[in-house]
């Protein structure tokens, strides 16, 4: 029974000690933390009893709305510096809606493509995650329109790969899983193959933040995202990216509710209308630099 430590053990032990010493204190600031656009909302809403009466019994009893959200979609929904709180334009907007109903919001980060399923199964009461309203989604769930977004292409500064959205054949394009931009790219790729050219390679990432990172690192030649996200990423990367062309295919975002909750969907639309008439709706949007996406009517399944 030799008591002597073998060199390998001594090495790993010292590595462990170094690690523990490092862990001694946690810090909450990063030297290169990017400046996040948008300030905390200053306006708070008062409860409207007529709206509160329309809350589904389950939410009324719980006193909170459980919201599924994919917190990788800055600036609409993303994790704050503490790694826990979900922040963003959608968050501020829906928090204001919940205040109108007089209830709290429980933001639950989820994978984007699992949210509609989660709303359907009752895991979340509502899904707020920059969902573009389209016929397929409307068939499955109720959607309340609240914002107008289009698709925006982005490339590295100066477009070194000379990407042309209308002729992206043979290129690698970054896009997030489960988004409408995938259908867009698939259609463009089909056009390429029909014309006898190389198809477009989709680099599909689980999170939009990874798509942006792929573009910066050069893994993708260009990316497609919803206009607020694309424009924000361009701003966020400090001049590494630029917009390519203009926003197209404008379509409304919708808050997702189960098919059974049409009355509640109607009440949410009313709450949004009331936020609009007080001016707080536009104020929230401009906080996040998204004024251009404002809509004037809030409708269920438009």
């Amino acid at each position, binding site marked *: 029974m030799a008591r002597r430590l073998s060199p390998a053990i001594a090495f790993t032990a010292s590595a462990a000690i170094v690690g523990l010493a490092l862990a001694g204190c946690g810090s909450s600031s990063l030297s290169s933390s990017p400046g996040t656009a948008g300030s905390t909302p200053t306006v708070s809403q008062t409860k409207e009893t007529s709206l509160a009466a329309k809350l589904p019994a389950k939410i009324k009893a719980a006193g909170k709305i459980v919201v599924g959200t994919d917190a990788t979609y800055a600036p609409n929904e993303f994790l704050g510096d503490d*790694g826990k709180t979900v922040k963003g334009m959608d968050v501020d907007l829906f928090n204001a809606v919940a205040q109108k109903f007089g209830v709290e919001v429980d933001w639950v980060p989820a*994978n984007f493509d*699992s949210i509609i399923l*989660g709303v359907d199964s009752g895991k979340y009461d509502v899904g707020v995650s920059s969902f573009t309203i389209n016929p397929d989604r409307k068939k499955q769930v109720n959607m309340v329109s609240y914002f107008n977004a289009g698709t925006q292409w982005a490339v590295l500064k100066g477009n070194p790969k000379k990407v042309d959205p209308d002729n992206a054949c043979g290129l690698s394009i970054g896009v997030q899983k489960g988004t409408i931009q995938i259908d867009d790219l698939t259609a463009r790729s089909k056009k390429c193959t029909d014309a006898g050219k190389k198809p477009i390679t989709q680099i599909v990432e689980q999170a939009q933040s990874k798509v942006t990172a792929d573009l910066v690192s050069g893994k993708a030649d260009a990316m497609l995202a919803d206009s607020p996200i694309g424009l924000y990423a361009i701003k966020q990367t400090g001049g590494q990216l630029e917009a390519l062309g203009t926003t197209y295919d404008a379509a409304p975002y919708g808050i997702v509710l189960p098919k059974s909750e049409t009355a509640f969907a109607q009440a949410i639309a009313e709450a949004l209308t009331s936020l609009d008439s007080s001016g707080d709706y536009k104020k929230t949007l401009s906080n996040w630099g998204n004024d251009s996406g404002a809509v004037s009517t809030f409708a269920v399944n438009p």
Partner: protein
Amino acid sequence: MSASTSVERPGLIEARPVRHPWRWVALALIAIVVAMMLSSFITNKRWDWGFALQVMNQTPVLEGLWKGTIIGTVGAMIIGVSLGIVIAIMRLSENPVLKWVAFAYTWFFRAIPRYVLLAILGSGVGYLYSTLDVGVPFGQQLASALGLSSNLTFLTLNVNALSNSIIAGIVGLGLSEAAYMAEIARAGILSVDKGQAEAAQALGMSSGKTMRRIVLPQAMRVIVPPTGNEAIAMVKDTSLLIAIPIIAELFYQTSAIGVRTLKIMPGFVAATLWYLIICSILMVGQYYLERHFGRGFGQKKPKDRRFARGAGMGGA
């Protein structure tokens, strides 16, 4: 004998060590590669080591390390080891029902990838069963048929509320681990000579006592090394919790910082360094554990066994 004196003594042997010129060539090649790597570490600004160290020290990262990686590993291994031993004993039982249940369990959980299992637990189970009622079997149907006021349910668990907590992760990883641990424990139990159990029975011990007092302590020598191996693998598998998703987890938080700041590699480096540190600690612990349970078996170096996998363990 006298003849030997006349034989001439052999001259001095000019012994020289065998030359190994290729060793020097290999050394030179490796030195060049290492030098290239080191220089790229320093010259490629995208490595950004300072930033990686900062990421390692962020509060959310440390919280993820503690709540997701460490608590997740410990919890999953507790479920895995205890359930695994039960299943191994079931598998070796004479009772054909228990035997087949244990076999089916091992078959299912060894065949399903952990990532898929966790994704199912995260979104799928709550979709099928949004609440889990604990009560008398078929109590709700019985109660409505008999017109009882109570529905014979004692406890209702909200699956959806649990499915995004670390509990879902621990249960998922633990269930999967139990299948592997069952095989390890079975190999350990079978490694104990049958005569040991027979002798214990001859002394009047019950079969349960025989298992606890005689068989399992001896089986530990075979069970512990691969279990340590499994624990180390489990540390790394906690990174799969992203399938649920659980955000209070090391890899989720480091990559979140990586993509938020668009410094991807430092985020990965931070996670890698933490995994190296945790696994190093576990390897030290395993060295002593093996020495403890290997007592009386000569100077078998535990090193030789450390990376050997137990019988029937697939790729974990």
